[in-house]
């Protein structure tokens, strides 16, 4: 009886959540529908709300060529490899650099320690947009335009990562390291065999957050890459979209969108627990 009343009281909550979930999913559903019709059907403005017969053809074409009659894009396979390389390099690079810096700041005492920590901290206040032209100039002077190094290296600085690992390391019992030291382990050995294994949850969480962050970069890739071979997913899709005229190969654009979305969306869904942990920990 009590249980029945309780589940009755929950009906509005179910309703609100279901409607919100449906609204958020609707654009993806329509994109999927668009990716299963031919360009002419969509261009006439009479696209049905159910799948059509061109799924296989559209996906193969978008994957292998990315170019149709009224769209000239980059093949999805190229964009995916570029974005994957970029996201992995940024995520691993950020973790590598911030672990080393945090380790130095927490377990060593050396002149200028606080000064260095503040220099890294200041980068929080310098997003790309406030140093846009000079950053581009530095990268082009270093011959980094249209290279993966140029695409990823400037993104590897991470004040948030350094702050996060600093917190994690500070909470570790110092006695563990002291004991290892007595047993003859050096600082790098301690980092590798004690500190890193103990930080595994934070490492995983930060990796998921930074992978999504890296995959979703837009402004820097827009500036630093100029050839199609270097197109990342976000850049390539917006390029395909062009001025978004009604008569173009929307079917290919949507097939490319669905395929490329699949990567970060799967990461977020499958590793949701780590993503949430990472975001909340960074927010602390």
């Amino acid at each position, binding site marked *: 009886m009590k249980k029945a009343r309780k589940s009755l009281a*929950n009906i509005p*909550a179910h309703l609100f*959540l*279901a409607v*919100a*979930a449906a609204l*958020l999913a609707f*654009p993806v559903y*329509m*994109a999927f529908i668009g990716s299963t019709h031919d360009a002419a059907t969509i261009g*006439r*403005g009479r*696209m049905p*709300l159910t799948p059509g017969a061109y799924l296989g053809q559209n996906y193969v074409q978008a994957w292998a060529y990315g170019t149709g009659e009224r769209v000239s894009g980059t093949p999805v396979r190229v964009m995916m490899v570029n974005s994957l390389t970029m996201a992995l390099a940024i995520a691993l690079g950020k973790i590598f*650099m911030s672990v*080393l*810096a945090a380790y*130095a700041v927490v377990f*060593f005492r*050396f002149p200028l320690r606080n000064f260095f920590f503040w220099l*890294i901290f200041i980068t929080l*206040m*310098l*997003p790309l*947009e*406030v*140093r*846009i*032209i*000079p*950053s581009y100039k*530095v990268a082009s002077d*270093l011959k980094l335009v249209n290279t993966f190094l140029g695409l990823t290296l400037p993104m590897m*600085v991470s004040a948030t990562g350094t702050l996060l690992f600093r917190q994690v390391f500070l909470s570790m019992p110092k006695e563990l390291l002291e004991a290892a*030291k007595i047993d003859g382990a050096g*600082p790098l050995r301690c980092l590798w065999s004690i500190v890193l294994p103990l930080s595994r949850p934070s490492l995983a969480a930060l990796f998921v957050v930074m992978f999504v962050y890296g995959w*979703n970069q*837009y*402004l820097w890739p827009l500036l630093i890459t100029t050839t199609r071979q270097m197109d990342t997913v*976000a850049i390539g*899709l*917006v390029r395909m*979209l062009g001025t*978004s005229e*009604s008569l173009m190969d*929307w079917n290919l654009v949507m097939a490319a*969108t669905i395929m*490329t*979305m699949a990567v*970060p*969306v799967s*990461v*977020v*869904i499958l590793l*949701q627990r780590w*993503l*949430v942990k990472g*975001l*909340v920990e960074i*927010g602390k």
Partner: protein
Amino acid sequence: MAVIRREAVFSNKLLPYLLVAPQLVLTGVFFLWPAVQALQQSVMKSDPFGIRTRFVGWENFKALFADPLYLGSIRLSFVFAGAVAFLAMSLALFLAVQANRQLRGSQIYKTLLIWPYALAPAVSAVLWVFLFQPSIGVVSLALQGLGIPWDYHLHGGQALLLVILASVARQISYNFIFFLAGLQAVPKTLIEAAMIDGASSRRVFWSVVFPLLTPTTFFLIVMNTVYAFFDTFGVIDALTKGGPGKATETLCYKVYLDGFRSFRINSSAAQSVVLMAVVILLTAFQFKFLQRRVHYEGGG
């Protein structure tokens, strides 16, 4: 809670410098040096060919704040950021409260509300173009069927609305994650006590739960403002390119246009410096407040 001053574990002289070196070198080359350059360019003026440069002091800033287009862009950015932050936060809070109940399948709802976080703002905008393109989008056709003359390529107000909605849709997920984490940290006993005292559930929310979420709310205000100012670049670039006219040309998009499309280097640098001031204020606000939260945790 006493602050324990940690002693160094290791006493190597050179190693710590080697450990911080990679990050410091990148910080210097790609952050500090360019930022100093931006500051420098903002007080200089070059001729169109970049051959001669001279010091002009505040002139670029004076010109900027006398320019009605720039003032318009400031106003637009604040309206935009305010709308995005308010909508994305209030919707997320409402949904988080619903999802925090003991519901059957609440894990599925959470996943269905969190996945949009995976979308790059630009990619999310591509999806929205397909719905709202004036002559083929299903939503715009439906709107036109209702007699609403929908064409965001022509109407500035519609363009702004579309950019706001596309930016909000993705940000709801981010806010939802934080509000849900905040709600889960509220002690159940506190709510039960208020219920026993006869408070209605609405009353319990506004006088017990919401005040406990204040740290989360403040944090999200900062993060949403930063998001609206900077991360929505991709949404605007994919949807409207700042148009029609200047209807969606936010401060951040204008820095890009003036710097990389019109090559007005010094004006763009001055705009960068203004944005720098905005970020510094927001960060200072956040950390002042964060310290307070640490204090609360230590005291509790």
